[in-house]
């Protein structure tokens, strides 16, 4: 490494030894950042330091330079770890680029069109924990007056999950409109997943279908998080669940189908466990926290509601998502 570095180091060190003032430590530390950027190893730093001390201190006991030689030997492996780090950082960067492209491909592959139904306000938000999501929202192409949505979560996240998602999408695309009552959809998707995916990969899915003519919401669930129904007239929340195994476990599964009627101001929040199983530093969040968060913003639009829930939960877990986060709200609102 260049001679001037050693000279400059000696200058700062000398000033510090003379004054022991904070400003010299600050200068030294800023200098050390440059050392790291220039890939100067810690063993080089010790050697520079040794030379500086030898030149600076009169009557230096011989033990001191020997001790520095020993320290240099000790530092070699630290230096190697640092070099490995620098090469790993480069690798990591390449990997990030690949994931960014993959995320873009995923976005395009999984794009879905939000239905536009009189009297139904729809809000949705899906935020991946990492670049690639294993959660999935899909609005089925439906006849007029209907809005159907699938909310799914592949067990596990990241790339394997993304591969599964694209399979589900093409499975759902192959469905005909006639089959689109919730328990039938889950049955068909289950067969596809069971056939194509290896045994370690499971998918939970909630499927809901809203009929604007009579305000009936039909739903089935394949081992998915229950949805939450808010009854505006009573100011209470009701869990919407339906019996059914996870997708991909076995071939023939009977999926229960239930229904509720929405009244003005009622809404249904469909979520993945990335919403309900948020962990803060103190542990899992309280079961009723989501309800209280939704309650607080119940008079806003569906989109404002999901945005607000996300913002609050993100803050609570210190901006670190541990799982993909997905929430869809269907809200009956005659003004829409």
């Amino acid at each position: 490494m260049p001679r001037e570095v050693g000279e400059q180091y000696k200058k700062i060190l000398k000033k510090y030894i003379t004054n022991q003032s904070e400003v010299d430590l600050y200068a030294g530390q800023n200098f050390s950042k440059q050392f790291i950027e220039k890939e100067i190893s810690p063993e080089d730093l010790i050697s520079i330091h040794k030379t500086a001390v030898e030149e600076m201190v009169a009557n230096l006991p011989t033990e001191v330079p020997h001790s520095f030689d020993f320290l240099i030997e000790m530092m070699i492996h630290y230096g190697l770890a640092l070099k490995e780090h620098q090469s790993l950082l480069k690798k990591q960067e390449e990997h990030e680029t690949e994931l960014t492209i993959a995320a873009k491909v995923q976005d395009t592959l999984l794009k879905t069109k939000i239905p536009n139904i009189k009297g139904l306000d729809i809000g949705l938000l899906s935020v991946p924990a990492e670049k690639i999501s294993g959660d999935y929202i899909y609005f089925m192409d439906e006849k007029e007056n209907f809005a159907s949505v699938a909310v799914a979560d592949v067990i596990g996240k990241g790339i394997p999950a993304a591969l599964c998602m694209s399979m589900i999408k093409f499975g759902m695309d192959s469905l005909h409109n006639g089959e689109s009552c919730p328990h039938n959809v889950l049955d068909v998707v289950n067969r596809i997943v069971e056939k194509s995916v290896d045994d370690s990969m499971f998918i939970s899915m909630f499927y809901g279908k809203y009929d604007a003519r009579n305000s009936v919401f039909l739903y089935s669930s394949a081992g998915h998080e229950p949805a939450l129904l808010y009854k505006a007239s009573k100011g209470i929340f009701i869990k919407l669940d339906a019996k059914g195994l996870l997708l991909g476990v076995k071939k023939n599964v009977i999926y229960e189908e239930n229904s509720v009627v929405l009244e003005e101001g009622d809404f249904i929040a469909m979520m993945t466990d990335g919403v309900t199983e948020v962990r803060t530093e103190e542990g899992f969040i309280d079961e009723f926290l989501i309800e209280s968060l939704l309650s607080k913003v119940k008079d806003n639009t569906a989109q404002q509601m999901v945005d607000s829930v996300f913002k609050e939960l993100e803050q609570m877990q210190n901006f670190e998502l541990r799982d993909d986060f997905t929430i869809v709200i269907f809200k009956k609102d005659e003004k829409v």
Partner: protein
Amino acid sequence: MNQGSSVDIYTEWDIVAARQLGRNEAKKIGFGIVDQARITTAISELARNIYLYAGTGRIEIEQVSENGVQGLVIIARDNGPGIPDVRKVMEDGFTTSGGLGAGMPGVRRLMDAFSLETEVGVGTTITITKWVR
């Protein structure tokens, strides 16, 4: 909270003043030399961030004690632009300061506790704590 003192950050000299205050406080309540250096470095990074990205702000240092354990709480406040993507700033290898290992993840690693509040257009408050072992 027992005692408190603070340094306003306007110039690079104030970064040094904040470091000095932090080191003195750390020494006073019994931190060893390496932990003194770690606390000082954390303060240095926070103060430097204020100086570089918010323009002005303040470093507050308080002694705390919990269940008989002494500790130091450092709060860095600014009314700067805020951090639009906190997750990115907290990621390894994406340090705003450019250096390896430094930046916010570095500050977090140097201390025992770390919390960050920020709002775009309003400002940022970072609170860090270290306990005497």
